[in-house]
């Protein structure tokens, strides 16, 4: 992602607090989200849903300043106008079972302000985009989880909003459905200039679709930044699977003074100094072995997520 000129942030929150009785759902959130695809991560109950409701203008912050696409969710007029510019895909079930997909998406589009004919055409266009073919005329009660998730995305797209709030879009989907959904999200986030705020627990999904990551924990921003920076590991090491005489290869490495530890019978983790693995290939060849896999070891987002949570809690303890 070439760093384009820093545009105005899509979402900016300063010192936002939201209290539900004794529970502080949002505890002084400082956040600025640039256009493009951003992931909002956090364990259950970290305040993600509250933040989404705040961004939709459904919930008023107790303190602090919130700006979404230039609107202030606190002002009622802005609140209504704001919701015309946002597509929200809820995490929980939210589809009325007796309606069919076309009825639902066109009705919701009309409520947002499209004319009757625009609403119908947009409904069909969105449903085509999410790949819901002729089932769109059957009642939603008979839909599988996958089809429901697609209708949820379609209704968020119908009025072509510049900002999409997607809450766990791949929840309950099988691999095929999940990959299709991720392709849509990645495509929306990058090819059409839409900004996407994606909440998800499935970190592999986030890695495939988002450029920036914000980690929320107990109502506070524990970490935020570009995905690549966050996951660049400190020491460069690579995981290698070897076929043939593994011990000889390990011996060769040790002779060269290259530190390596044995992860499993045929997998070694090597802290090679060099930029690439050519030297390793050479070494393997020399002892009659060959390499079957070479993986540059970046700490996966799971690891980052767990570490960030750990030290954010230690910091607080």
């Amino acid at each position, binding site marked *: 992602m070439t760093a384009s000129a820093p545009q105005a942030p899509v979402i900016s929150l300063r010192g936002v607090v939201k209290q539900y009785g004794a529970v502080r759902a949002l505890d002084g959130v400082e956040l600025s989200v640039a256009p493009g695809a951003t992931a909002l991560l956090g364990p259950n109950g970290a305040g993600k*849903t509250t933040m989404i*409701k705040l961004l*939709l203008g*459904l*919930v008023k912050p107790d303190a602090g300043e919130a700006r979404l696409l230039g609107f202030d969710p606190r002002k009622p007029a802005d609140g*209504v*106008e704001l*919701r*015309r510019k*946002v597509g*929200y895909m*809820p995490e*929980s*079930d*939210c*589809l*009325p*079972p*007796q*309606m069919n997909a076309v*009825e*639902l998406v*066109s*009705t*919701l589009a*009309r*409520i*947002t*302000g*499209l*004319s009757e004919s*625009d*609403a119908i055409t*947009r409904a069909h*266009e969105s449903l*085509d*985009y999410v*790949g819901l073919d002729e089932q769109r005329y059957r*009642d939603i009660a008979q839909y599988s989880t996958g089809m429901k998730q697609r209708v949820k995305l379609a*209704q968020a*797209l119908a*009025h*072509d909003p510049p900002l999409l709030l997607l809450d766990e879009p791949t929840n309950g989907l099988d691999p095929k459905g999940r990959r*299709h959904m991720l*392709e*849509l999200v*990645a*495509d*929306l986030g990058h*090819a*059409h200039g839409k900004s996407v705020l994606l909440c998800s627990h499935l970190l592999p999904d986030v890695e495939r679709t988002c450029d920036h990551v914000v980690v929320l924990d107990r109502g506070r921003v524990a970490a935020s930044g570009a995905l690549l920076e966050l996951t660049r590991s400190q020491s460069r090491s690579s995981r290698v699977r070897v076929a043939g005489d593994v011990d000889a290869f390990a011996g060769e490495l040790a002779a060269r003074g290259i530190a390596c530890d044995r992860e499993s019978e045929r997998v070694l983790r090597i802290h090679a100094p060099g930029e690439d693995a050519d030297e390793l290939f050479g070494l393997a060849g020399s002892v009659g072995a060959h390499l079957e896999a070479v993986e540059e070891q970046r700490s996966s987002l799971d690891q980052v997520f767990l570490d960030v949570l750990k030290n954010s809690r230690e910091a607080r303890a």
Partner: protein
Amino acid sequence: MTAATHTEIYRPFRGALAPSRWAFWPLYRAQMAIATKRKLPLFILFFGPAMTGIVVSFLAYLSFQIEESGSGGPLLSGAGLAAQFAAQLLEVHKLIIQAMTAARYFAVLAMAWYGAGLICDDRRAGAHLLYFSRPLTRFDYMLAHFATAFTFGCFAVLGPGLLICTVATFNSPNFIFLTEKWPVIVGTIGYSLAFVTVLSALILAVSALSKRKSYALAAVFGVFMSTLALGGAMAALMRERQWRMLSLVSHFERVADWWIGSSRSIFRWDPWWSVAVLGGLTLVSFAIVAWRVRRMEVVA
């Protein structure tokens, strides 16, 4: 389908996004579409009102025919004729009152069935998340649901009433039914609209309070049957009709007698009392609905 193919399919929307003044209208249309999808309940619940309308219209038609066929007797003089017209008009008037009483019972059934699930089913399905994440104010949301219940009420009550009045008007010789009995027609329409408004508000409030449609139905039946029984029991006990005021149904009958019926009515109390009670009930119901919808908008 790799991502590349998606770029062409997604077409940005070039149309204008009009500021939606009538945001309640599409929601109302959608609710009506859902309700009328299943034809069986529609038939069962509206068979009664339809029959009431047709049968009573036929009776009204018959009562005017007797005059033309004449009983073979000498041509009645002017006064005799006028007396006969008056008798027929009174006859039709009584028919309308009976029709309205029957229609009321069917209306409660139909509106309870279609109205009870309106708000609680939205909450159970989670659909309010979709509605309130759009520029839909709480008032629009309530208005859409109110209009749905109101529509079914009109079909059950206003429908038969209007049918009977029209048939009576066209069959009465040179429209004397219209010229002389127009207060009855106006009264029928007024009463039907008032009755349906109060009932819609009550049912919406019950729907907003209950968790499931079945509980809402039980509550609506409960309110009607228990107040009816209470009124009846107290009246029998105290041997005074005044105590009928405890029953909701009696208030509706009192207003019906006052607007449509003849002046003397089996109920003694001043009709304004009933109007006050029903009006108050409607306001309280709207307040409950507004309060619950407010909570729905915020809580997931």
